[in-house]
């Protein structure tokens, strides 16, 4: 069974009296423990796809299913990492990570262990009692990822999680996420507008068209990555220098450029 399925998803909305078609017949199936990235121009509806899997929004027609169940509401089985971090400013790092476990009714002692584990996983030791605003952007996003991972969710939904970070921090976070994803594989739906990021992180990359959004093609990165031993390189710039990486990146860029065409500003 697929972990996440989009079946003929259609999404229309009305703003200021004008009807927009945001998504038109989106079909996508993500296997368990597979890492899929969606890239596309801004406003193409890629974030809408993620929000429908999270249960924040619902398709006008078609179905979004997670583990075979139609999504009806948000829940801790589908942890979301937001672009704006969405940490609770009035809770410490520890309390932020702990909240989901408390909601699940996990006993206190076990909560302490699991939060400590998540804190260690994201290299946040020593910041347990800090408030989010006392941390840098990169550290805040680590907390948000820890908050998602600690729930041990079936599905991780990441909405441009590194979009608000500076370039250097971004690279470090990408490398860490790769290590994390290869060590603790989860089903991940990852939204980005960076082609490099998508190719570097994902098993498969779905290219979306400009509005009305549709999946134009899905490029399988994993066989290339495995065959060319990308994961043997610790640093992203070394991977990005590989011919196989450049080739895939150029191919996706072309696919996007054809799409953007003359109407692009």
């Amino acid at each position, binding site marked *: 069974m697929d972990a996440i399925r989009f079946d003929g998803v259609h999404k229309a909305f009305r703003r200021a009296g004008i009807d927009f078609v945001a998504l038109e017949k989106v079909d996508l199936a993500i296997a368990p423990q597979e890492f899929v990235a969606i890239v596309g121009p801004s406003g193409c509806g890629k974030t809408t796809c993620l929000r429908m899997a*999270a249960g*924040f929004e619902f398709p006008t027609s078609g179905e979004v299913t997670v583990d075979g169940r139609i999504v009806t*509401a*948000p*829940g*801790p089985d*589908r*942890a*979301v990492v*937001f672009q*704006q971090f*969405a*940490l*609770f*400013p*009035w*809770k410490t790092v520890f309390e932020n990570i702990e*909240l*989901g476990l*408390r*909601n*699940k009714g996990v006993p206190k002692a076990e909560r302490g262990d699991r939060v400590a584990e998540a804190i260690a996983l994201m290299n946040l030791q020593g910041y347990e009692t800090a*408030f989010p*605003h*006392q941390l840098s952007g990169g550290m805040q996003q680590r907390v948000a990822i820890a*908050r998602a991972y600690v*729930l041990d969710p079936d599905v991780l939904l990441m909405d441009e999680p590194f979009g608000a970070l500076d370039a250097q921090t971004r690279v470090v976070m990408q490398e860490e996420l790769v290590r994390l994803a290869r060590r603790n594989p989860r089903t991940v739906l990852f939204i980005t507008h960076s082609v490099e990021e998508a190719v570097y992180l994902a098993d498969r990359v779905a290219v979306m068209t400009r509005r009305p959004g549709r999946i134009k093609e899905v490029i399988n990165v994993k066989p290339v990555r495995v065959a060319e031993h990308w994961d043997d390189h610790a640093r992203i710039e070394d991977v990005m220098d590989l011919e196989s990486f450049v080739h895939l990146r150029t191919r996706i860029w072309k696919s996007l450029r054809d799409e953007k065409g003359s109407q692009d500003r």
Partner: protein
Amino acid sequence: MIARRSIVGLGTIMVLVGCWYVLTSATGLVSPGRFPSPQDAWESAWQVTVTGYANGRLHEHILHSLKLIALGFLVAAGTGVPLGLLMGWSRRADAIISPIFLLIRPIPPLAWIPLAILWLGLGDAAKIMVIWFAAFVPSVINSYTGVRTIECYVVEAASMLGTPRWRFVLEVLVPAASPMIFTGLRLSLQASWTTLVAAELVGALYGLGRILNVAQQDIYPGMILVGMICVAILGWATTRLLAHAESLALPWLRTAEA
């Protein structure tokens, strides 16, 4: 820079006090019937503190006014903040209550004084009612705004984590709105003082407004000044107290400034 400011500030105040002395006591350019000399003010302060004035001694007046402020303010905050939170969260409650609010809100709180006296007389109940009405509005509006301006991804994060309803209210809604709630409480406190002084000026047996009222009738400028200074000091002190409560209640904002 702070040192520079406080030196200039201290200097300004000393110059002002000097001018006050020169204009009244030393030269008599301003007649004592219009504005008291420092000595008059000191004697008035001594009189009201030790022998008493307008039915009581200073600490009795002050305690009486403070009691009314505390009661009126607490009742207003206790009713206004929950109502504002409710209206902010439930669009239905907002739609039902807003028109009533729009109808009553333009009436300045001080305009309720005659009605309060008609209904409840010149006693404490009338003053608490007027303070309540005055302090209620800022509490409601700011709590409402506090809820309405919560970033929607904060709500989404809470629901994604499966937060149950009551925990959501206590741990997300109220903390997220609390900076605005405290802004409202500060305005409420200010409104409470204005209303109390006005209500006591209109009619009262004790209180700072009573001192001002009697002093006005007696044409006693020294006592008027003492009354005004007391109003200012108490207003300042209660505001500081509220600011202190805020920094205790919202440690995450305190560290933001540090």
